[in-house]
């Protein structure tokens, strides 16, 4: 058990490319920390530096009280679960799990006991004498977990351990991993590109982009108070809607209408923004069918929009409409779109807004519907830097 501290950790490849830039992160003892970001953001490189599989170009890495920059992986007392599991194909499940213990010179009867126990926890008892080739994806994944937990290491490092599983199994294993981690109470660093995994699993989540740590905080903090456009757009599904607006006096001029500027937002707005154009972010659930808002109707702003499409999820509905206006130009959002492949779909262009409505809503496709938006839930961002103008300043 130990905390992991990164201080100004940088990874520079020989060709000069910086995969991780000046990363500062403190992972507390027993904490479940998620590193999340689009592919190529440096999260895996960061994890591999913690594991000792990549050299640290500059900065300091501590596990517990020890500076481990120069230590080989075996001296760091960490266990890692690889994306492709990296099971030894010539060994049985039992030998795979016993391998780290054997290397550590643990006596045979203790190896036996620990492997059996890990197999019991992971429900692998009847597979102990099989080879990895004869196991299903989920079973291989559990063997990889088993190989990590038998050691009782100072920390677990997991590199997208669930990304090779199919969707259903992934959800199942996700809860499994969360339960296992809280039972064992071992410090865990978990890398994923899947924001849902990040939000559901972690005690705290660290969002990375292009080698730079963007924001660290609890899932709720990241969701409610993103520090910039990138985090706002990355966290949450469906993603936050963005439109260009202008603050004029007490209202925000938006493509959907002149939304009143809530007093608490005005207070938090940093800098002189009057008359300047800003990027406004609205989460889908900040909208509602105006007919269903009841007493809250007067607190919010009601506008009309032509509904292009309604998707019913059973428990809720997603209504899509178009808000004409200036399109949002931001390199951060472009990168997000590129990563999710959305830039290849022509229909998901600028101005498309998605609203999450109650399942009871009667709005259907083609309606000129009355929608309601909560003005206190707006997020304002600087269009040039992408920084949040309404950030509370907590969490990072």
């Amino acid at each position: 058990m130990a905390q992991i501290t990164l201080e100004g950790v940088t990874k520079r490849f020989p060709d000069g490319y910086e995969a991780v830039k000046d990363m500062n992160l403190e992972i507390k003892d027993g904490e479940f920390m998620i590193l999340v970001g689009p592919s190529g953001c440096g999260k895996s490189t960061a994890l591999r530096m913690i594991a000792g599989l990549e050299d640290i170009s500059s900065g300091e890495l501590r596990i517990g009280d020890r500076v481990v920059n120069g230590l080989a992986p075996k001296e760091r007392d960490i266990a890692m679960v690889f994306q492709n599991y990296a099971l030894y194909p010539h060994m049985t499940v039992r030998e795979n799990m016993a391998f780290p213990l054997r290397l550590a010179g643990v006596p045979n009867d203790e190896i036996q006991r620990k492997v059996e126990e890990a197999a019991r926890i992971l429900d692998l008892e009847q597979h102990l004498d099989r080879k990895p080739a004869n196991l299903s994806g989920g079973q291989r994944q559990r063997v990889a977990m088993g190989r990590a937990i038998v050691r009782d290491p100072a920390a677990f490092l997991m590199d997208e351990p669930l990304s090779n599983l199919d969707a259903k199994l992934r959800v199942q294993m996700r809860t499994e991993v969360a339960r296992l981690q809280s039972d064992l109470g071992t410090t865990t660093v978990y890398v994923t590109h899947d924001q849902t995994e990040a939000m559901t699993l972690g005690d705290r989540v660290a969002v990375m982009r292009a080698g730079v740590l963007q924001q660290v905080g609890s899932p709720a903090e990241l969701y409610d108070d993103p520090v910039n456009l990138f985090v706002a757009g990355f966290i949450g599904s469906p993603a936050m809607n963005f439109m260009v607006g202008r603050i004029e006096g007490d209202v925000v001029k938006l493509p959907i209408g002149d939304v009143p500027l809530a007093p608490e937002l005005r207070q938090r707005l940093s800098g002189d923004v009057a008359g300047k154009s800003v990027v406004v972010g609205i989460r889908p659930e900040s909208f509602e069918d105006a007919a269903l808002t009841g007493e809250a109707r007067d607190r919010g702003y009601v506008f009309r929009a032509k509904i292009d499409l309604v998707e019913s999820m059973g428990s809720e509905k997603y209504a899509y409409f178009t808000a004409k206006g200036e399109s949002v130009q931001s390199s951060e959002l472009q990168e997000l779109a590129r990563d999710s492949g959305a830039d290849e779909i022509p229909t998901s262009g600028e101005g498309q807004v998605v609203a999450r409505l109650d399942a009871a809503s009667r709005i259907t496709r083609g309606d000129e519907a009355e929608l309601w938006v909560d003005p206190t839930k707006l997020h304002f961002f600087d269009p040039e830097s992408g920084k949040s103008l309404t950030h509370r300043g907590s969490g990072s």
Partner: protein
Amino acid sequence: MERGTREYALWSIGIVLIVFVALLPVVWIVSLSLKEPSTITTGPGISVWDAFFPKEITFDNYKSLFEGGIDDSPFIKPLINSVLIALITTLISIVLASFAAYAIARLNFPGKSAILAGALAIAMFPPISTVGPLFDMWRTLGLYDTYPGLIIPYLTFSLPLAIYTLVAFFREIPWDLEQAAQVDGATPFQAFRKVIVPLAAPGVFTAAILVFIFCWNDFLFAISLTSSDASRTVPAALAFFTGESQFTQPVGSIAAAAVIVTIPIIVFVLIFQRRIVAGLTAGAVKG
């Protein structure tokens, strides 16, 4: 369905034909080696069937090969030479090729493609064009008719073969496993010995068999660079077999010797084919 059966029939006929053509000489040699020397050249007037198969099976041809012990037999010393030269070449070749292939498969270094291209060029080089110069050089250097005199040219031609085979195998090994082993607490050497070597073994065996067969079968260097039983290998020695008298052909003994030198190759392939095909790497990473 109909088309399927017809295709199947055509394939079957084709396969039978190919196997027949490939095995006929082998069967013929075996048949010759089991015939009485006097019946080998039976004249016209008997059916092909009777001419092809021996009337009476005799092992005299085999016995004659080993008559006289190591000093007088024309076969025992060359057989020992063949085995030793092929084994030594295989050993040196595989050790050197493993180092080279490991570096080529794993590391990025300047001149990597030049090395591979050079190896390929050497493999393509017609051996006959080196024989003349080698003959002169070896005589000057005192390597003519010695083991090293054969092992060195064999190495030059078998190394490219071994390097290419091993590079192909090494590239297939999931190197993540090496890192997994290091995180699991292995030193780099332990990771190599306990994880990589078992996975690389099938490839190494394959390369070893190929090199061994290459050396074992060589006739050109063996006939040109040897002059006595001190280093003459079996393929070359066969050419110097003599009959009982000046007027008899040693066909029976040559056939028997040919059968004997074929046996190790067949045994090797049968034993190691299982290891090669075992597909050890299946299931290491999600495919």
